[in-house]
C-alpha cells in the first residue's frame, strides 16, 4: 500500500514559532480586553455596610446613576475587625469601610486607614454639610479620616402609662434632679413573686453611659486632647455612686440583669412600649421599633445636666473611610462612592424609599438622623408625616439634641479603655468594689493604656 504524499510539509520549528505567536497574540488581546474592561468598570468592595434595606438600596441607586462604571461589592453586617486587620496587613484591603466613629482614632492611630484631606481639598468638598461634631469625631491628629453617616442620640424615654399607674404627674419630672430620678425609679419598680416585672428607671450606666452621666455632672472622662484620664474625678465617683444607688433601690444589679435578659428592645415586645421599663436612656432609633403601636403612650425628653435645665446627649454613629493601601483609580472610585452616598440627594432618595417601604408594610415612617444637615431637615419636615404627638415631639427633639451633642473619646486605645470602664462599672454595680475603688483602679489602667501607646515608637 502506497503512502499518501502530503500536499505540503510544515517544519517543526515553524510550527513552534506559530504556536508561540498565537499564544502571544491571545495574551496581548486578553490583556487589552482586560484593560478595556477595567476602564469600563471598577469594582470597589465596601465592608460593614449592607444593601439589604430600602434606604441603602436607594442611596446606592443614586450613586450608580451618576457613576455607572463603578461596581459595588458590599459585605454587610458589623465590620469584622479581624478580617479588616488581616486584609490591610496583607495589602489587599476593601476600598471602603463603614466604621464606628468611636473607632476611627483606633484605626487611624495604627495606620490602618488613610487621611482623606487631599481628596476633600481637591474637590473642594464641603464638610459644612455635616454636623460639626460628626466631623470632629472622624478627625485624628488634625486630619480627616472619614465622612460621617448616621447619628444616634441618647434620649430619655418615659412610658406614660406606667407613670399614670403609679400616680406620677409627667409634668413634675425634673430630669436634672438626680434625687428625684432615684426616687421615681424605686417607685416605678415592680416585683412579683420575688422577680422583677417592671424596671423603674434604667440609667444604662452598665452599657457605657458613664460618659453621659459624667458629662451631666460636668466632667469629661478623657481630656479633649486624649492624653489625660479623669475617671476618679470626684464628680465621676458621684455619678457612679448615684447610678449604683438607682439600681440598688430597684432590687440590685443581679435582679436588673436577670430581667433585662428576658427583654428584646428590637421586637414589637419592646419593653418601653409594653411598659416593662418605665424610664430609660436609649437611642432615638427606638421610635422606629415602637412605631408598630402608633398610639403608644410615651414621651421622650432630652437628658439634662445635673441641677440644670440645659440639655445634653451622647452622639454616636459611623463613617465611611478608605483603608491604607487603596490607591490610584480604586481610591478615586472609593472617594466617589463616599461622596455619592453621603450627598443630600442620595440621603433624600433613601428616606423617600424608606417612606415608601413603610407605607407598603402599612407602617408609619420614622426618620433617621443621617448626619447630612440639609437632608435631615428636609426629611423631618417634608417626608415625615405626623403619627402622634409622642412621635412628632420626638422628631422635633432631634434638632435640639443635635445642638448639645457630646461624643466619647475615640483615640487609639478607646476599645481598651472601654473594656476597663465597663469592668469597673459592673464591679461597682455588683458591689464587688466601691465606686471610688473601682474608679481609682480604672483611672490607673486607662492612663497606663494611653501612656503605653504614647511610648511606642512614632505614636506620640
Amino acid at each position: 500500500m502506497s503512502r499518501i504524499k502530503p500536499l505540503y510539509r510544515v517544519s517543526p520549528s515553524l510550527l513552534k514559532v506559530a504556536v508561540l505567536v498565537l499564544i502571544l497574540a491571545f495574551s496581548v488581546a486578553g490583556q487589552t480586553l482586560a484593560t478595556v474592561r477595567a476602564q469600563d468598570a471598577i469594582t470597589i468592595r465596601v465592608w460593614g455596610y449592607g444593601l439589604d434595606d430600602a434606604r441603602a438600596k436607594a442611596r446606592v441607586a443614586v450613586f450608580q446613576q451618576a457613576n455607572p462604571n463603578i461596581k459595588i461589592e458590599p459585605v454587610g453586617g458589623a465590620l469584622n475587625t479581624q478580617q479588616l486587620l488581616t486584609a490591610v496587613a496583607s495589602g489587599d484591603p476593601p476600598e471602603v469601610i463603614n466604621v464606628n466613629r468611636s473607632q476611627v482614632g483606633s484605626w487611624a492611630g495604627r495606620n490602618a486607614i488613610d487621611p482623606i484631606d487631599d481628596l476633600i481639598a481637591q474637590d473642594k468638598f464641603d464638610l459644612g454639610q455635616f454636623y460639626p461634631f460628626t466631623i470632629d469625631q472622624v478627625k485624628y491628629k488634625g486630619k480627616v479620616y472619614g465622612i460621617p453617616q448616621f447619628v444616634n442620640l441618647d434620649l430619655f424615654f418615659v412610658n406614660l402609662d406606667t407613670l399614670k399607674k403609679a400616680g406620677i404627674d409627667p409634668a413634675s419630672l425634673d430630669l436634672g434632679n438626680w434625687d428625684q430620678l432615684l426616687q421615681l425609679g424605686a417607685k416605678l419598680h415592680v416585683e412579683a413573686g420575688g422577680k422583677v416585672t417592671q424596671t423603674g428607671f434604667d440609667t444604662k450606666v452598665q452599657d457605657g453611659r458613664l460618659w453621659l452621666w459624667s458629662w451631666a455632672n460636668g466632667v469629661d472622662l478623657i481630656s479633649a486632647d486624649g492624653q489625660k484620664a479623669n475617671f476618679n474625678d470626684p464628680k465621676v465617683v458621684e455619678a457612679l455612686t448615684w447610678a449604683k444607688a438607682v439600681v440598688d433601690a430597684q432590687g440590685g444589679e443581679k435582679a436588673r440583669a436577670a430581667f433585662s435578659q428576658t427583654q428584646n428592645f428590637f421586637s414589637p415586645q419592646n419593653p418601653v412600649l409594653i411598659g416593662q421599663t418605665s424610664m430609660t436612656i436609649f437611642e432615638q432609633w427606638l421610635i422606629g421599633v415602637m412605631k408598630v403601636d402608633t398610639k403608644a403612650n410615651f414621651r421622650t425628653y432630652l437628658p439634662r445636666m445635673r441641677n440644670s435645665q440645659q440639655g445634653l446627649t451622647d452622639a454616636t454613629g459611623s463613617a465611611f473611610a478608605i483603608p491604607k493601601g487603596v490607591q490610584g483609580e480604586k481610591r478615586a472610585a472609593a472617594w466617589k462612592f463616599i461622596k455619592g452616598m453621603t450627598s443630600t440627594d442620595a440621603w433624600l432618595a433613601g428616606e423617600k424609599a424608606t417612606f415608601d417601604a413603610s407605607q407598603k408594610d402599612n407602617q408609619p415612617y420614622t426618620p433617621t438622623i443621617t448626619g447630612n444637615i440639609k437632608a435631615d431637615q428636609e426629611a423631618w419636615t417634608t417626608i415625615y408625616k405626623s403619627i402622634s404627638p409622642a412621635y412628632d415631639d420626638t422628631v422635633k427633639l432631634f434638632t435640639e439634641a443635635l445642638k448639645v451633642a457630646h461624643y466619647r473619646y475615640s483615640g487609639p486605645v478607646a476599645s481598651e479603655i472601654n473594656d476597663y470602664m465597663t469592668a469597673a462599672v459592673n464591679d461597682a454595680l455588683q458591689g464587688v468594689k466601691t465606686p471610688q475603688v473601682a474608679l481609682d483602679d480604672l483611672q490607673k489602667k486607662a492612663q497606663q493604656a494611653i501612656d503605653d501607646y504614647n511610648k511606642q515608637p512614632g505614636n506620640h
Partner: protein
Amino acid sequence: MHSESERTITPAPIPSARRPQTSAGRRRWLNGLRWNEETRAGLVFVSPFLFGFIVFTAIPLIASLYFSFTAYDVLNPPVWIGLDNYQRMLTDERFSKTLFNTLYFVVLHVPTAIPISLTLALMLNARIRGLGIWRTIFYLPQVTPAIAVGILWLRILSPQNGLLNQGLALIGINGPAWTIDADWVKPALVIMKSWSLGWIVIVLLAALQQVPKDLYEASIVDGANSLQRFRFVTLPMISNVIFFTFVMLTIFSLNIFTEPLVMFPPQVFGGQMGPQDSALFYVLYLFDQAFRNFRMGYASALAWVLFLVTIVIVTVQTIVSRRLVYTENN
C-alpha cells in the same frame, strides 16, 4: 538537578555491613535512594501535607514565637521588646482572671464529662431496643452548631424564666442566677457542655466493643458480679481510651471559645465576658488582645504560655496515667 527538598531527605538507616564502602559506591547508593520510584511517589503523596504544614503551621508557629518578644499591631513593623509581653502578664489582672476561669472550667468539666460519657457509652453498649435511635439522639448535639446550642442553653439557663430553674422550682429549689451570677456562670457552662459529649461517647463505645468477650466469660466463671466485671475487666481494658479522651478533652477545654462567646457576648455585658468577666476564657482573651486591642505581640505571648500550660498539664496526666492505665506491657 535535584531540588532542595529532595536533597534533605534522610535515608533510612541500613546495617553497616550492607553499606557501600567506597566514596563512589556511597554516592551511587545515595543517588539511587534519592531517586528511586518509591521515594518520589512518597514525596508526591506527602507534599500537600508538607506544604500545608510548613506554610500554615510551622512558619506561623515560629513567627508567633518571634512576635511574642515584640510590640506588634499587625499593621506596623514589629518592634523588639524582649520579655516585656511576658512580664506584662504578671501584672495583668484580666490575664490572671482568664487563666483562673479556664483552669476552673477544665477542673470542673473534664472530671464530670468522662463519667457521664462512660455511663452513656455503657448504656448504648447494652442490648436495648432502638439502639440506633438512642445513639443518634446522644450524638445529635455534637453535630448541632455551637451557636444554636449556646442560644438554646441561654434560654434554658435564664434565671428569670429558664426551663432549668422552673424544673428546680417544682422540687422546691430556688435555682441560682446561672447567667447573671459570676459564681454560677462556669457551672452553667459545664452543664451546657455536658450536653455535647457525643464524640467521647462514640470513642468510649468503640472501646467497649473491643473488650474481648472471653474475659467476661472467664470472670463470670470466677463468680464476678456485674460491678466487679466493670471494675476488673471493663475499666482496665478501656483505660487507655479513657486516658486518651481525658487528655483530648483537657486540651479542648483549655481552648474553649465559641460557647461563652455566644452566651456571654461582650456587647451584652458592656465589654466584659459575662458578669465580672466570669466567662472570659483564655483563647477569648487572646483573640480580644490580638484583634480588638491590636496587641498581636502580647497575644502571641499568651498563646505560647497556653501552649506551655497545656504541655505541663498533659505531662502530669501522662505521668499519673502510668499507674492507672492498663497496657499490653503491664
